[in-house]
């Protein structure tokens, strides 16, 4: 895992000779630790600010010079959210939409990925090329036709429309990621299971699926993240509050009460919490998903 520090070998430079190789290596390492800590502090500052604002009264937020720590601690912002059905329904909607999108993408994606990984057929290259291109589609281009289509179909302002539309970007990602994982699993293992009397489908479920669980977790989490954070389609396709998802609700809160920062930041904290928690527990898989997502080869 760790690549040896370049420059840490047995040839001390004359100009650093006095502190020796050991000392020099230690010094460079210390600097690395320090710089990383500074970077973490800078990167975390906006997040820390979000957290502290979510637990202060609003009059404290815009004070000049700023109070770094809350002078009065209040959970008023969180209370407002949990006391109101109006806000809770938004969390529920987002959860339902994201979960359904993830499940659909994984099932349909795994099937397509299997076909692409195990069979040779005419047009395979074209299909792959199409899938890679879809990840780069300008989504705003699709808004106008979707808006028209869903009005015609009577699906405008429904959660169903969001679920369907999110597949445009989650499904190709799942297919590509699962395919690159399946390719690296030897097909002998399935064939052995088939020799032992499994049908092809049985063999897939008993060997390939269990063996690919890291890919399923990685792709599933990444898909969930994409769906949970999506904003553009939620703006264009949803009208009524009952069908809103988080990102859109937070945005309309900003327009609604410009000064109610603690409620908005409480909302933001709650909206980010599920993803951050999932990431803490499943960091390894998620980083895999992130890496594989971009370099599907």
């Amino acid at each position, binding site marked *: 895992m760790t*690549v040896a520090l*370049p*420059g840490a*070998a047995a*040839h001390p430079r004359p100009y650093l000779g006095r502190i020796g190789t050991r000392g020099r*290596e230690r010094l460079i390492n210390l600097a*690395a630790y320090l*710089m990383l800590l500074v*970077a973490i502090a800078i*990167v*975390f500052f*906006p*997040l820390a*600010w979000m957290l502290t604002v979510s637990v202060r009264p609003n009059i404290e937020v*815009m004070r*000049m010079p*700023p109070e770094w720590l809350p002078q009065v601690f209040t959970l008023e912002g969180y209370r407002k959210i949990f006391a109101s059905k109006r806000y809770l329904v938004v969390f529920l909607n987002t959860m339902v939409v994201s979960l359904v999108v993830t499940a659909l993408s994984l099932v349909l994606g795994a*099937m*397509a990925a299997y*076909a692409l990984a195990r*069979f040779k*057929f005419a047009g395979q290259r074209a299909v792959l*090329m199409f899938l*890679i*291109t*879809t990840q*780069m*589609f*300008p*989504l*705003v*281009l*699709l*808004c*106008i*036709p*979707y808006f028209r289509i869903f009005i015609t179909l009577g699906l405008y302002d429904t959660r169903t429309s969001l679920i369907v539309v999110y597949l*445009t970007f989650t*499904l190709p990602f799942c297919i590509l990621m699962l395919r690159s994982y399946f390719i690296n699993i030897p097909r002998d293992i399935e064939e052995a299971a088939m020799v032992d009397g499994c049908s*092809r489908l049985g063999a897939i479920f008993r060997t390939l699926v269990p063996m690919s669980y890291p890919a399923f977790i990685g792709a599933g989490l990444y898909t969930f*993240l994409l769906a*949970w*954070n999506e*904003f*553009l389609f939620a703006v*264009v396709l949803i009208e009524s509050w009952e069908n809103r998802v988080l*990102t859109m609700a*937070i*945005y309309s809160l900003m327009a609604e009460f410009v000064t109610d920062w603690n409620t*908005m*930041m409480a909302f933001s904290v709650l*909206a*980010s919490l599920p993803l*951050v928690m999932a990431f803490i527990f499943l*960091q390894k898989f998620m980083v895999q998903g*992130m*890496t594989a997502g*971009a*370099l599907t*080869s």
Partner: protein
Amino acid sequence: MLLTLKRKYREELLAASFLWPSLLILVALLIYPLIDVVRLSFHDSNLQREVWVGFGNYIALANDPLFWRAFWQTVVFTFFSVLLHLVIGLGLALLLNMNLDPAFRTVARGLLIVPWLLAPTVAGMIWVLMLQPFGVLNGLLASLGIIDTNSTISWLGDPSTALGSVTAMNVWRAFPFFMVMLLAGLQAIPKQLYEAAEIDGASLFRQFWHITLPQLRSVITTIVLLDSIWTFRAFDPVYVMTGGGPAHSSEVLATAIYFDGFQKLKFGYASAEAVVMFIVLFIVSAIYVRRTMSNQQ
């Protein structure tokens, strides 16, 4: 002979039946709307009526200073976002790749990824709060003595700083993607290369220039292409933070298309803008797809 033929067809049939659900969905969700938006771009349409205008929308577009302004601002936003993502991501990846305690490395990497997990909407809201005239950034600058408490800057309300502020937020939000990808790339470089360079007495900088950078070149090209595409089509950061204003000073193509379509109800005109955006992205995507496909051989 007959048997192998039959087997081949059976395989193709199985592959097709696994593949068609996904392909059908993606064609319906991507190809049909694409055709529809191209068709609409030749019409004058406000959803109620559709009048054929030929290239009228495109001619109007070419003569619209606001469109060209949005176009160049998108290019500027993309260029600086991607450049800073690369510089910051590479710097942090190099630090994380040094001879650190493995537990510290995991925790540091995990913490530094968090901004990337947030919804762009949420990240945008946090920065809107921080960048208020009486927000914490001005407070910080004032307490450092850089600006006067009475002449605070309205970062998002001033045309000269709006686009820069949105870019800063986007840099903060998305650098972790580069960091993770480049760290994975760094860890794949064989250490022997550095050991050999060390024996030849190459300095750290020369090792970086002659080993690290060339070895990372393919990863860098890939993520720069991907991020350029993603940033060029970005909607959420701009829409949430400034809505393209003040006075169009932070307008990008995605928000311009949205406002022309859904606020001004000029759907034909917005479609023409979307087609231009698609053509630009398609060219970059084609380069990316060629690279990815050739890696696959």
